[in-house]
């Protein structure tokens, strides 16, 4: 990896950590994106979650307006059946497993939770296996 992408990784990661800290100490909640979105779809969203999601969705627009982000389409011409299957699996899996990369991978690990450590190890391990066997990617 280049020095530039290392810098971007560290800066972006620090902002993500700061965002999770702000939500916890400011609003008393965990920044778990799959949980918030799932609650929204099943009519259980809290005002805090709605505002967090609104901020998240505004991010590409704000960054675009500031000229810091060109909003490229990373998923131009994907393999549609695989995209649908992956989306379904991510939806079912994050609800049954109570979290995704943000809730377990960032907040749960920061909370030193054995549940989140287990979930993170499992979803990273399984995802790495999928890629190792050549099934990764939507092209």
């Amino acid at each position, binding site marked *: 990896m280049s020095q530039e992408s290392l810098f*971007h*990784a560290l*800066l*972006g*990661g620090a*902002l*993500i*950590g700061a965002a999770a*800290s702000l*939500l*916890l100490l*400011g609003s*008393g909640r*965990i*920044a778990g*994106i799959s949980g918030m*979105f799932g609650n929204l*779809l*099943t009519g259980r969203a809290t005002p805090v979650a709605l*505002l*967090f*999601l*609104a*901020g*998240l*969705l505004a*991010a*590409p627009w704000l*960054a675009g307006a500031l000229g810091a982000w060109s909003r490229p389409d990373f*998923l131009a*011409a994907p393999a549609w059946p*695989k995209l649908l299957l*992956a*989306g*379904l*699996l*991510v*939806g*079912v*899996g*994050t609800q*049954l*497993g109570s979290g995704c990369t*943000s809730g377990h991978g*960032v907040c749960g690990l*920061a*909370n*030193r939770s054995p*549940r989140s450590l*287990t979930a993170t190890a499992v*979803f990273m*391990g*399984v*995802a*790495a296996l*999928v*890629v*190792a066997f050549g099934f990764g*990617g*939507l092209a």
Partner: protein
Amino acid sequence: MKLAALLSGLLFGVGLLISGMADPHKVLAFLDVTGAWDPSLAFVMGAALLTAMPAFVYARRRGRTLLGDAPIELPARAPITPQLVGGAALFGLGWGLSGLCPGPALISASGGSLGAIVFVAAMGAGMWLAFQWSRRRSDAALADAPLRG
């Protein structure tokens, strides 16, 4: 504090964009440990954890928010159940197939990517199905439970 939530979501999204994790190719390159491995995501998570961990330790001790004095709600750290492991495995399957997890998918969908919009629709359907399933299961568990009293 409501403003904190809006600002936190914005900051979280900008962090995801800057880190490069909104790009599924970059995520897949991290997952490709046996191939041309790109460690970026490890640095993203490392930096996020270093920043967030002191706040989580402090929040657990404090128990109330800094402004507004509301309770801080932290999820249970135990137990590790088959449902947790099975759910995480299904999520890993979908994440590995696509390189997309919920945060980056929502951001790309908001940015106007048709592929991401379709992914989010499928993800939403999956979440709804899982919710219905677990509700039916907990209803059944309640009905099966022996009466006490």
